[in-house]
């Protein structure tokens, strides 16, 4: 059996298979990148990728779109920690933690700007930001974050967890791109390290139900206890991975904490636009 036999078989069901595949020679070429010998075990999944491309089920944003979206989020995070570290809200015992995070977020901004601009794209400028979540009013629900350290940490946790979810949601658009996907995954991991550390600091300050990982219930992804960020955690309660319902293998808390879920770009921008990102 070879690929052409499979395609011939499909032709009996879908006479237009060749037309669907022809404009997408690159998709077919992906199969050869497995190597000259492809194990049959891997083959169905290769076909899944091939056909998804041939039938155009996924609209793919450009790599620059993905990177500029990531840059938007990094501008916001960097701004939050830059202001936080300059306002005296952070206790001395935690200042090294926050300085590290601020350093990383600013490095992410610079890295993404450099990558985009040096690759022929145009890095977006820093957007108008309202760290109070008030769409430019400065009097949003999180206005107290720079005088109340526990609130500062709570908002930071939501930013970091959301950042992790946002990067994860873009991975598929960068599939197979060794340079860009690896860089994005590497930033993604650092955001998760931040999220873990902030959660641990909150635990140490008395938020005793807060773990370094997101522990959802069967009906609520959000484990922060702040209802205002339910949307940032929507879907974290998922228990099905790769078609396997993991509830048979562990408790809800364990199952949900073991897998972090993605957010789409639309979901993330809906959460931020008109609140932290000023929409005029």
């Amino acid at each position: 059996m070879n690929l052409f036999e499979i395609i011939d078989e499909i032709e009996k069901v879908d006479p237009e298979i060749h037309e669907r595949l022809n404009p997408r020679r690159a998709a077919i070429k992906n199969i050869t990148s497995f190597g000259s010998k492809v194990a049959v075990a891997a083959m169905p999944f290769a076909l899944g990728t091939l056909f998804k491309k041939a039938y155009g089920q996924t609209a793919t944003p450009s790599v620059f779109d993905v990177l500029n979206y990531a840059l938007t989020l990094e501008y916001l995070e960097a701004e939050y920690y830059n202001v936080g570290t300059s306002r005296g809200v952070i206790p001395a015992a935690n200042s090294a933690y926050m300085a590290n995070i601020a350093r990383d977020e600013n490095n992410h901004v610079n890295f993404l700007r450099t990558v985009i601009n040096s690759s022929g794209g145009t890095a977006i400028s820093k957007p108008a930001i309202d760290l109070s979540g008030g769409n430019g009013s400065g009097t949003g629900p999180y206005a107290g974050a720079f005088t109340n350290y526990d609130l500062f940490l709570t908002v930071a946790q939501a930013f970091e967890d959301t950042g992790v979810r946002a990067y994860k949601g873009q991975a598929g658009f960068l599939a197979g791109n060794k340079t860009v996907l690896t860089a994005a995954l590497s930033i993604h991991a650092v955001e998760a390290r931040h999220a873990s550390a902030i959660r641990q600091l909150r635990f140490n300050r008395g938020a005793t139900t807060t773990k370094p990982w997101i522990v959802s219930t069967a009906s609520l992804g959000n484990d922060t206890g702040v209802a205002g960020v339910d949307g940032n955690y929507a879907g974290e309660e998922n228990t099905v991975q790769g078609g396997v319902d993991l509830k048979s293998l562990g408790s809800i808390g364990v199952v949900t904490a073991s897998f972090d879920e993605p957010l789409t770009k639309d979901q993330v921008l809906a959460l931020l636009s008109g609140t932290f990102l000023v929409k005029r």
Partner: protein
Amino acid sequence: MKTELDLTTGGANMARRSFLRYAGTGAAAVAVLGAASCKKDYSERSNSNDIGSGDMGVLNFAYALEQLEAAFYLQVIATPYSGITTTETAYLTDIKDHEVLHRDFFKTALGSSAIQALTPDFSKINFSDRASVLGAAKLFEDTGVRAYDGAGYLIQDTNYLLIAGKIVSVEARHAALISNLITPGSFVASDQVDANGLNYSNTIAEVLTAANGYLKTKVTAPNFQYYA
């Protein structure tokens, strides 16, 4: 273009079929593939220490690491180090539960494509000593993060890539915590994060070289240029 299928590896079973359906190939293509499968000389991977090739190879690579991590934390919880605190016990128990679930998930999802159960070799670790245990935990977690990040681009199917992404951030959460238990504030130290704010990543060969130091059953990956 010449693409010959090699039927000497892999096979089909129910667990993998449900996994496959999720992959978005569609029932029609699956049926076609079944009809077009002309040989039955499958040999299963369940007796093999070779991760295989393609996406199944990368997933088996992950499964090998999760087996190692799960075995490690099961031992940590079974024989806690002296002076362990209540908080540390709670953290390490959670991590043990996560790694066992990751292991069981891969075993179920891979079905007959899964590599064999691996026997660990923890002779280098003193389980009664906090520094030894947390040092090993840090190595395993940091290596896990670098492994998933480094192998992500090899995954062709975006559904599997997403699953790897869902797991790697949890490993990064573990890594940061373990690092902070050893040295508070070290969660993004320069041993793991570069000057651009990127976590370091490693190749499959680099990761397996490290992992095999803790395995009696050596894992090989000839399709990824690694021979144990």
